[in-house]
């Protein structure tokens, strides 16, 4: 486990995500923090193993909690919508890791800073995040779609993505598939 307290002391504007033991980096500091982590002899995190995006929709969860007096009270927990880009950094020289870096951004205009200038290994993975999540990476040398074709407009890994209506005929369609089949082929309603 890497002790992240000195990093937090060095960069006071970083936030800490205790659940994942992750550093949350603001976009304008990302490159500086990454360079510091890579070059500082105490960390030497020279290897960006995994880069990925996460899409969070706004959620509202209701749960009933029993109070001390025996009465159930409804508690609503809300989470905000947003997107994250997660970096897992390791050190090949010192053999330690991982240190988790996160950049947070909004769902409406998702922009983060690319770490490809520091870690070349992030190049394709950031392109993949751009392709599938639609998160723009400032400073990426070659930000194009990588897995889907260039004409594709959607961002399929987002949680609210709706797949194209190209269901397959099934031998015994039922439920949603049957409804869709009838819509697709313009077939009459099923016999009563």
């Amino acid at each position, binding site marked *: 486990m890497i002790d992240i307290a000195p990093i937090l002391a060095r960069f006071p504007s970083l936030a800490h995500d205790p659940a994942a033991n992750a550093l949350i980096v603001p976009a304008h500091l990302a490159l500086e923090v990454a360079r510091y982590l890579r070059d500082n002899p105490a960390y030497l995190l020279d290897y960006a193993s995994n880069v990925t995006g996460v899409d969070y929709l706004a959620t509202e969860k209701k749960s009933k909690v029993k109070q001390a007096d025996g009465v159930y009270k409804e508690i609503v927990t809300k989470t905000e919508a947003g997107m994250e880009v997660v970096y897992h950094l390791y050190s090949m020289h010192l053999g330690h890791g991982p240190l988790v870096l996160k950049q947070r951004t909004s769902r409406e205009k998702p922009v983060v800073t690319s770490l490809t200038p520091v870690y070349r290994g992030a190049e394709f993975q950031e392109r993949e995040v751009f392709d599938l999540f639609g998160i723009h990476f400032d400073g990426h040398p070659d930000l194009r779609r990588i897995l889907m*074709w260039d004409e*594709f407009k*959607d961002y399929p890994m987002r949680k609210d993505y709706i797949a*194209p209506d*190209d269901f*397959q*005929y099934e031998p015994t369609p039922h439920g949603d598939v049957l409804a869709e089949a009838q819509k697709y*082929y313009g*077939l009459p309603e099923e*016999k009563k």
Partner: protein
Amino acid sequence: MTNPPTPTVPIPGVHEGLRSELQKAGIFVVSTEFLYNWGRKNSIWPLGFGIACCAIEMICTAASRFDLARFGAEVFRPSPRQADLMIVAGTVTKKMAPQVVRLYNQMPEPKYVIAMGACAISGGPFKQGYNVLKGVDRYIPVDVHIPGCPPRPEALLHALITLQRKIETQRTLGSAERRNNPAYSDDSRDFPVPQYGEHDLVPAYNRDVWKARPVTRES
């Protein structure tokens, strides 16, 4: 000739007794159609075209233990211009589908397609994927389907033998349904190549290749 053709189909206009008499003297009377098919079925040249997991089983079939060469189909050609058989070995994605159709169009007639594995048949386990084509028979006609994920090499051998049986009964002028289908008149034998669209392939499937059976459900 080590393996003489033994015609079983009677030829109209040729007396069967005369034919068997001639056969005893080493003279074989067969139709050109029979000769064509005999040659075709025993020297199928597949297109060396591996897409996904099934391709490895296809390689195993051609390799030491299973030895596809026993059935005359070991000559994997890298170019579609030299191939008779396309073994669609793996998941055809929407990004790959135009290339598959183009390769099929580039193959010379007569040409055959084996859809190897669940993915090539229907999308298989990846059917719900946004980038997965739900069966290669949405765009090109398939002669033999092999179920399995992936099918064993023996299954591919069986499919090949099934295809050979199919070729045996083939008319040299091409299959009647193809001939009579106005969509594939002699002017254009090519199957339409789908285009990349904004959300999906355009068109999503070729209705002339594959028509779904009407959806009915017993209540």
